[in-house]
């Protein structure tokens, strides 16, 4: 039976995966170049992002942007930041208060930088985005509507999208509640946060992904994430991976808390 991976195990797995990846890359490089160039030449379909996509990160839960590249916080955000006790990063410590530890929703945009895949399904009036993590989803409306000015704040926000040319899907979102963190190392945001994403499908298998977060109540400048790569996983399907509080709680007692007390370095 499949149970939900958790950050610590994911981290350990990531190290193993990283090691394997290097050996795979080495083997791939030793293999004839023809196969690689064939698959690279397959062009992107027009105005179509359908499929399961895997963000090519470290294999662990990543931050939106490295801590050192975060713009200065406002006093409002700094006060919140000081109360955050993340499980990762320079401030990582046991007994943290990361909201996801009790299965509160991870929210957007943090969910984008998890090691789990997302799937895009296109309908005539919206693009549906499904995240394996937490078994969550959001509609990205493409029927020409504007972002509402009075939306009830939610965990995954309200999103609209449009195409620039035939290969770049631009998504704007707002209407977020301020209960989520931007990443595993913390960093707050306010309800005024607005997010702009660009999904640039450069070939059949590849999306270049850019994100900018604008939140003047919390940060003095927009946060610009480093460009990421997403790869198509044509034979995969999203699995049902909800955060289950009773399992999470049992796991925390058995493994996470004892592990957090061990020195990290």
């Amino acid at each position, binding site marked *: *039976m*499949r149970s939900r991976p958790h950050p610590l195990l994911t981290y350990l797995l990531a190290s193993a995966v990283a090691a394997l990846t290097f050996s795979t890359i080495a083997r791939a490089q030793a293999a004839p170049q023809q196969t690689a160039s064939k698959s690279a030449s397959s062009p992107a379909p027009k105005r179509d992002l359908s499929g399961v996509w895997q963000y090519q990160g470290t294999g662990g839960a990543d931050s939106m942007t490295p801590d050192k590249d975060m713009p200065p916080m406002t006093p409002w955000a700094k006060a919140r930041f000081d109360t955050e006790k993340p499980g990762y990063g320079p401030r990582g410590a046991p007994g943290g208060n990361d*909201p996801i530890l*009790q*299965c*509160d*929703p991870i929210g957007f945009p943090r969910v984008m930088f998890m090691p789990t895949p997302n799937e895009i*399904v*296109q*309908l005539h009036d919206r693009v*549906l985005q*499904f995240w394996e993590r937490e*078994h*969550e*989803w959001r*509609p990205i409306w493409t029927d020409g509507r504007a972002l509402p000015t009075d939306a*009830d704040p*939610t*965990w*995954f926000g309200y999103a609209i999208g449009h195409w620039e040319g035939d290969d770049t899907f631009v998504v704007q979102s707002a209407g977020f509640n301020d209960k989520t963190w931007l990443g595993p190392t913390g960093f707050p945001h306010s309800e005024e946060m607005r997010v702009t994403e660009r999904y640039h499908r450069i070939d059949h298998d590849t999306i270049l992904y850019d994100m900018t977060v604008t939140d003047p109540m919390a940060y003095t400048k927009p946060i610009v994430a480093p460009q990421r790569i997403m790869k198509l996983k044509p034979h995969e399907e999203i*699995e*049902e991976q*909800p955060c*289950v*509080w*009773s399992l999470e*709680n049992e796991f925390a007692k058995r493994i996470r808390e004892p592990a957090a007390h061990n020195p990290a370095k």
Partner: protein
Amino acid sequence: MFITDVQDSSGTGFSLWVLVLAKTNPHRLKPVPLSKKSQRDLMQRFMLAMLMALSFVALPIVAQQQGNPKAAPAPAPKRDLSGLWHYEGTGASEPIAPDNLIPPMTPWAQARYDAEKPGYGPKRAPGGNDPILQCDPMGFPRVMFMYTPFEFVQAPGRVIQFFEHEHEYRSIWTDGRSLPKDADPTWYGYAIGHWEGDGTFVVESAGFRDSTWLGSTGYPHSEDMRVTERYRRVDHDTILYDITVTDPKAYTQPIVGPHRVMKLRPKDEMVEEICVPSEEKSFANRVGEPAASKPTK
């Protein structure tokens, strides 16, 4: 008709009704201006209650007007269930079938049933162990009998069913595949669907975890559970819904749900209603436990 807490004629119906309203969304109890979602929910509930009351008066009139072709609803589109649907139930969370229509349990199921402490129905008691009290997933088929809407979208190779409750969804595969024999058990199962004629979508599902209950009054099921549903779109605005649960490890006969009616809500959109453990816990401490401690009869 459906037997539920609300129709309990012993005089406790109203307090239970309020408990049902209250338990499901902590925000509703705040004396602050309601969110649009809450306003809509409350309005729907109010309208449902009014409709139930009015139906006794209005039914004969409506029946007479059925002969008028102008009043007839538009015909159903072919092989299309797209849209937001609302189950026309009591307005509260309901069991899959009334207790008296649940077939005899096997000893395996009876032992589990005895350990269940639901918050509703004849076994209702404070300090319950309903898994949803701690935001564990409600699971399928229990989610079908909530008072919140669901939406069908039809995509290539599948029909996706979104449930507003818990912000959940499942894919119902229509690409001709079979149910897998070795699927990892999940909370919402593995589903395939096909059309019978142009108006009836038949869904078969399996691969469920046994950690969910069939309804708010309890009742276990095993991982062997298989569910067959029939969504029969009888006109543009109406689905007649039938469900049968077959689980020989738990019940000596199939459980056959009563015929249910679902209505199209063309102007509604799903709202994001996630079960949030931190909010649920603070709600349980403040309201749920005190309410459940009051004598029921």
